[in-house]
């Protein structure tokens, strides 16, 4: 079967068309796809494009960067609070992350009241707290309701000092053994 192996000149269609016009390919040997291509040509003719080898041509930024207005809020949120208490579940397409809830609340409050950015930020934090999401500031100690367990605050020197004072009193008081020392 005759053909033309020059893939860098013209498209598949033009080559076959010209071969048929010149009689190299008979009508009986017409490829199946010829009529279909003629009826439904592609958007861009599949011509071979030579690769640019010269590095001197300056690259123009034709692909725009995608940024949204809410990105400013998101930047501040991530700077202050870190990634948020819950991990992102990407398996669900309708999943709303903590950051997204924050942004939604922020835009809601912004449309309702007239406050400046930092005040709005605080307000959104409080609003989310009211809904039950605890936002932990990055770097700062955890803000929790209940007081810390006193055992965690024990220091070894204090414990030794207490033991010595206790052993001094042990003659007077019988059952005053200190609690087990935390190693």
């Amino acid at each position, binding site marked *: *079967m005759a*053909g*033309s*192996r*020059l*893939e860098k000149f013209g*498209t*598949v269609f033009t*080559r*076959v068309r010209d071969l048929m016009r010149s009689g190299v390919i008979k009508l*009986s*040997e*017409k*490829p*199946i*796809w010829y*009529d*279909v*291509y003629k*009826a*439904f040509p*592609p*958007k*861009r003719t*599949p*011509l*071979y*494009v030579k690769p*640019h080898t010269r590095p001197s041509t300056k690259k123009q930024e*034709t*692909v*725009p*960067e*995608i940024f949204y207005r809410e990105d400013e809020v998101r930047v501040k949120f991530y700077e202050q609070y870190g990634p948020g208490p819950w991990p992102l579940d990407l398996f669900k*397409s309708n999943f709303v992350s903590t950051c997204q809830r924050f942004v939604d609340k922020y835009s809601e409050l912004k449309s309702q009241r007239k406050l400046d950015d930092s005040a709005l930020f605080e307000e959104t934090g409080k609003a989310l707290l009211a809904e039950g999401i605890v936002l932990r500031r990055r770097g700062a100690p955890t803000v929790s309701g209940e007081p810390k367990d006193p055992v965690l605050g024990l220091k070894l020197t204090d414990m030794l000092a207490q033991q010595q004072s206790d052993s001094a009193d042990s003659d007077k008081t019988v059952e005053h053994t200190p609690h087990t020392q935390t190693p």
Partner: protein
Amino acid sequence: MATRALAKGFLGLRLSRVVPIRFFCGGHQYATAAPVHSAQPENDIVTEKILNEPLENPDFFRVSELFSLKDLFDARVHLGHKKGCRHRLMEPYLYGCRLDQDIIDLDQTVEHLQQALNFTAHIAYRGGIILFVSRRRQFSHLVECTAKDCGEYAHARYWQGGLLTNAPVQYGPGVRLPDLIIFLSTLNNVFQQHVGIRDAAKLNIPTVGVVDSNCNPSLVTYPVPGNDDTPAAMELYCRLFKMTINRAKDKRRRMERIYSLLAPSTQSS
């Protein structure tokens, strides 16, 4: 040339899977061995009608109903590679760049995919051989299963240099080459353009290819800009191609049955 020795089905015996050979009752009109035109002129007219009728309709096989933009988005088709991997020729198909990751324009993808599926359907309707090619090892099984389900061929293994260009020597004389090659990933394992694209262009075989943001779409006849790395996206493409091909073949069988029922009445009249 008339040998129906579809040796393509046994591509690289030691490498790829055997795909069932299927025969078309409609017959391939263009592989004429001994011309029998004078005996049945009506048959030819009927086949001409069967073949030309779908070309008049812009969407004869209703492929636009098979998918929507939301389906593409859910399958993460819009996600491209990073900005540094971007191919210069893919820039017109990109919507933008979000934090250095390229986002493919799904409006364009919808149009391109529609054209590609429509072309595939027409080729399958006319009894063309379709070859699925993908060098991604992650999806080789999926590609081969897809090809088996629609009764077409797949080559998801190492592409030997002379597979298409040296086919008569490798597979014997009179091999019938594919009429359409569908690339589910246009890159090979070393991130260079797959040899098959250039070979298909050399042998005047049209190609349909899923081009990611780091691929070269220039030689692909019907490129489809989209993600080729995510399993969800690949499953979507395989499903769409399988459905179009099956639809096209069913349609062909139905048309032939209709015309064969009509034919006796035309002969008598």
